[in-house]
């Protein structure tokens, strides 16, 4: 039976897909459904219609980038599936998805919430706790993802051989 040991293409495509889908989850749940924040809501609070629409444009640009990340991940995953040296491992892909989502939340939280303060997860009382919790949840997801990727190292069956 053929064996495949090159995990890297699956990991990179999973990171891209995880970041894209994680960004969509952030935008759909926190921006639109719960309406806790918008992309620039701490710079330009959406307290009138013009400001809401201003933030809506930036939310749209955010979603455009998450869409591009998702498409890039999908393309990479498709190409990885065509290679005989890449293991078609559910654990590796699931781990990379978690890693991508977790890293995206951590980096976005660090840059946008902590360093630049363009928005906060849940503005108001206990704002810092929400922001730190968001980063911590991202790091936990990334750690879980790394553990899954590590567990998937023993998976060595390429897609065509399944």
């Amino acid at each position: 039976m053929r064996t495949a040991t090159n995990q890297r293409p699956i990991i990179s495509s999973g990171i891209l897909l995880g970041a894209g889908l994680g960004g969509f989850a952030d935008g759909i749940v926190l921006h639109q459904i719960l309406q806790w924040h918008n992309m620039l809501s701490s710079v330009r609070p959406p307290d009138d219609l013009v400001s809401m629409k201003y933030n809506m444009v930036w939310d749209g640009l955010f979603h455009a980038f998450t869409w591009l990340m998702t498409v890039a991940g999908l393309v990479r995953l498709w190409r990885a599936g065509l290679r005989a040296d890449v293991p078609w491992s559910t654990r590796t892909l699931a781990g990379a998805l978690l890693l991508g989502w977790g890293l995206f939340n951590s980096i976005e939280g660090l840059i946008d919430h902590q360093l630049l303060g363009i928005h906060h997860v849940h503005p108001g009382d206990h704002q810092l706790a929400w922001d730190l919790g968001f980063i911590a949840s991202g790091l936990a997801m990334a750690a879980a993802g790394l553990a899954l990727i590590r567990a998937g190292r023993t998976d060595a069956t390429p897609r065509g051989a399944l």
Partner: protein
Amino acid sequence: MVVAAYRGMPRTIVSAAIVAGLNSLTSPCWACPSCPIGVTAREQVWSSGFAQQLAIVLAPFLLLSALCVAVESVGARPDRKP
């Protein structure tokens, strides 16, 4: 056919619905491409540090893309033989 669908309904209700529909076509619309509030908001997006804000929004995506490139290239080892 449209008229047939409304047959049997009081004429006042039908005419009121038609008038309401026509009004919706001509009255100011807040979600249209050229409404004053939307135009103002989009103009402000472009005129208030668009490039800087775009760089901030893009930063996490660029960092993760760079990480993916690193995963693919840096530290690449020749494939192990089974």
